[in-house]
């Protein structure tokens, strides 16, 4: 069947999506049956759908935006994969070690291992499907340097790697004829008891077409959540409107749990001016390609912020740092390329100490270090972005940048090999899953994560669905009615509040109280504030009707944002230490005791809030621990042989 199956060619129906275009056509329920329903069409969702389709599942992709617009297009730097095209001595073991160290050892070791092992083949597949990566002199896929990665390892296309990746996967999905339901939002996943075993398992999903407001039901024994992150809960963010934690919240309501929600990555370099683009991402490649950070006194301050943990592999003089770009064998990495959490905290400290720029940022300077031709070739989108949006020519003057909410390490707790959650038939991949990145994600590991675990989830979901035969859990019809009522509730309120106002207040509150540097008292305050927002959200109202109504869409998404915000604040309050993307002013040290446990979040029994418990971190097998011994052969860059 073609893209969007329903009613192709029928009168008054959308040729692509099949939904009735008439705003009055609210009655009647569209219903579809699939083996695998993937929610989200970013890198993870598309890769999962391709895998499921190729494994023989009847597969649907359901996404909130048009196909090809998901947040993956914003990824700039590249896909981390130990292909060894620049450094033959790079291999999965080094990548694994870098990933675990970047995550401050809190990663799920098995996910980090699988990721490092499988990323190279996932990148090669993209090339088979038509991706055009930048090349080395030998014609192989080029690989670039990034923070926390020992070797130049990121396969890239200038600074628009995400666009290349999503377009390649999109074209592959279209070629395979996978059904796509675009501009369709899932609001509930259904769980039913199996007819044979009585065990609770996924039975389907419920949503609405944004275009018409009509409801749609999917009968499917598997749902793969690939909904991305939660950045829209914060005021200053690099994330788009879609990032409202839908997958996180859907999983919790279905009975699954989240882990590591206290760990939020604030990317060190977001734009700070003009106000309308505050938070917009400035790629780490600027630093990978020679850019440095300076305060208002012109000082290259990162040398003052090298933590003990990374001292052995970080340059401590300007001379050595600058020499590294040309001679990586005999020099250590510049401190600007420390993992993101370290750099973001350093920038934050400089700004707080009064050494910020006129617009409250820090200078990121590549103009004085590289030629205009080099900058335009290596960083074309950044050149374009600053020229068009801020009137700044980055080949001639420094950029003003500051930390921005970029990525959530936390997400649905899943099995490392299959990405299945605690709920049978419910899978989570990419940013909405948790564990892979521990307390801090390395740049470039996100795109690899999407591909590696997207494929694994697609394969696992298909195997499970096929194994069910005729014994599929059936959707309980009362659940459908309840989902319908819940979605329509905002239309029924009289005199309530506008959802835009509540969202904006929530974003401000999260930014102020649960931001980059946290304090116990402020986190407690934030939980009180979130309770108040929840009260206000009960009576929010929307105007207009159901056809393409952004106010209504926001009212529904806001419920997810509130659950997710509460999860973040509760976990952040509980973790009394600082580690990776979680920094406590009142507990500044990293505590080895906390390094052995995850915080797990569930929905309370009455569904009105979240509860928290500790869970031991999975223990790494003996043979992998040798990579982290003090005298491990990989500990010192200076002794390594290699070519750039």
């Amino acid at each position, binding site marked *: 069947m073609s*893209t969007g199956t329903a009613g192709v060619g029928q009168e008054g129906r959308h040729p692509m999506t099949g939904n009735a275009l008439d705003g009055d056509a609210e009655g009647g329920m569209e219903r579809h049956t699939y083996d695998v329903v993937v929610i989200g069409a970013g890198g993870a969702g598309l890769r999962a759908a391709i895998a499921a389709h190729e494994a023989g599942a009847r597969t649907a992709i359901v996404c909130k*935006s048009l196909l090809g617009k998901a947040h993956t297009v914003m990824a700039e730097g590249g896909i981390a994969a130990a292909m060894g095209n620049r450094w033959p001595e790079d291999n999965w073991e080094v990548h694994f070690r870098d990933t675990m160290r970047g995550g401050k050892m809190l990663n799920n070791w098995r996910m980090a291992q699988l990721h490092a092992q499988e990323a190279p083949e996932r990148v090669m597949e993209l090339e088979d499907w038509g991706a055009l990566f*930048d090349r080395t002199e030998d014609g192989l896929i080029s690989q670039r340097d990034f923070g926390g990665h020992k070797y130049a390892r990121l396969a890239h296309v*200038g600074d628009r790697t995400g666009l290349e990746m999503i377009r390649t996967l999109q074209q592959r999905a279209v070629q395979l004829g996978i059904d796509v339901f675009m501009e369709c939002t899932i609001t509930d996943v259904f769980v039913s008891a199996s007819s044979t075993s009585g065990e609770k398992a996924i039975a389907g999903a419920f949503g609405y077409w944004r275009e018409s407001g009509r409801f749609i039901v999917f009968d499917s024994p598997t749902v793969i959540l690939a909904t991305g992150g939660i950045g829209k809960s914060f005021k200053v963010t690099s994330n788009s409107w879609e990032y409202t934690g839908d997958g996180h919240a859907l999983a919790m309501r279905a009975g699954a749990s989240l882990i590591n929600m206290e760990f939020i990555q604030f990317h060190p370099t977001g734009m700070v001016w003009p106000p*309308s*683009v505050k938070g917009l991402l400035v790629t780490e490649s600027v630093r990978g390609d020679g850019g440095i950070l300076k305060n208002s006194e012109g000082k290259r301050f990162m040398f003052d912020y090298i933590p003990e943990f990374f001292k052995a592999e970080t340059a401590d003089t300007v001379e050595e740092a600058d020499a590294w770009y040309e001679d990586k064998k005999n020099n250590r990495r510049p401190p600007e390329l420390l993992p993101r959490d370290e750099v973001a905290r350093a920038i934050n400290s400089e700004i707080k100490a009064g050494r910020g720029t006129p617009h409250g940022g820090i200078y990121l300077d590549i103009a004085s270090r590289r030629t205009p031709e080099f900058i335009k070739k290596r960083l074309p989108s950044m050149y374009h972005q600053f020229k068009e949006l801020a009137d700044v020519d980055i080949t001639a003057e420094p950029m003003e940048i500051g930390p921005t909410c970029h990525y959530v390490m936390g997400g649905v707790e899943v099995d490392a090999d299959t990405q299945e959650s605690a709920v049978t038939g419910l899978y989570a991949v990419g940013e909405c899953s948790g564990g892979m990145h521990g307390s801090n994600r390395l740049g470039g590991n996100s795109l690899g994560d999407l591909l590696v675990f997207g494929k694994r989830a697609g394969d696992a979901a298909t195997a499970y669905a096929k194994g069910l035969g005729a014994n599929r859990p059936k959707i309980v019809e009362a659940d459908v009615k309840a989902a319908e009522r819940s979605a329509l509730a905002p239309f029924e309120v009289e005199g309530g509040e506008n959802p*835009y106002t509540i969202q*904006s207040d929530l974003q401000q509150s999260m930014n102020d109280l649960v931001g980059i540097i946290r304090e116990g008292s402020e986190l407690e305050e934030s939980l009180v504030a979130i309770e108040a927002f929840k009260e206000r959200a009960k009576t929010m109202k929307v105007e207009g009707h159901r*056809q*393409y109504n952004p106010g209504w869409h926001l009212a529904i998404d806001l419920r997810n944002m509130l659950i997710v915000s509460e999860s973040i604040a509760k976990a952040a309050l509980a973790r009394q230490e600082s580690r990776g993307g979680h920094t406590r002013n009142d507990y500044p040290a990293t505590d080895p005791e906390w390094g052995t446990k995850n915080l797990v979040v569930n929905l309370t029994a009455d569904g009105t809030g979240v509860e928290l418990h500790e869970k031991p971190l999975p223990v790494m097998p003996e043979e992998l621990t040798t990579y982290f011994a003090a005298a491990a052969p990989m500990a010192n860059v200076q002794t390594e042989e290699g070519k750039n």
Partner: protein
Amino acid sequence: MGYTLKLRVWRGDKSGGEIKDYPVEVSEGEVVLDAIHRVQGTQAGDLAVRWNCKAGKCGSCSAEVNGKPRLMCMCRLSDFEEDETITVTPMRTFPVIRDLVTDVSFNYEKAKELPSFAPPPRDADNKRRMAQVDVERGQEFRKCIECFLCQNTCHVVRDHEENKQAFAGPRFFLRYAELDMHPLDTNDRRKLAQDAAGLGMCNITKCCTEVCPEGIKITDNAIIPMKERVADRKFDPLVWLGSKIGIRNKDDDGRVEL
């Protein structure tokens, strides 16, 4: 720095609509999409608009600003006088769904008609080799963010619904050119580009190039070379003679005509 912008926005659906006034407070450094969002947040919560990245990277917020096809997120208010009225209307070539949101399914249908990349097997070491200079031609075209402004502005289909069947439009000529120039692709899509995609209907007025927010030289670098390649295949007397007596053109080496 703030002032009240005289903003006008088309409101309505497929049954009709009108341009409405929304005077709105704006401030320094803002773009048209900021003004639209403020209207949405304070005056008309149900104002329908597509957007995602707000950074010119996803190509969602295409519309016509004072009649010119633009991405609203890249359209700075400082490019207008403070007392100037800014009128925002939906893209005209596609059917309106509601307000600024149009039905762009035409483009997704055309995408399905295009045969995909078909590479040979990988090298013996399981890798592929291509020269940077060879991938750069295709890379320019792959910068396309699918905002569909080129499709919207192209006079072959703008106000000519009847041509849509036979015409894929500039966005897909880019794609044909990209694949034709791919160093590894084994398909020859030239006949398809000419016949099924309607490349011949384009009379290279460059309107598409002018509106491309990515600055892709659609006409010069994709459409004209593609037209030349099609012409080579069809009209070069030597190629014609060669094909008659069974000699393969070098350009066709290893490629299968679709």
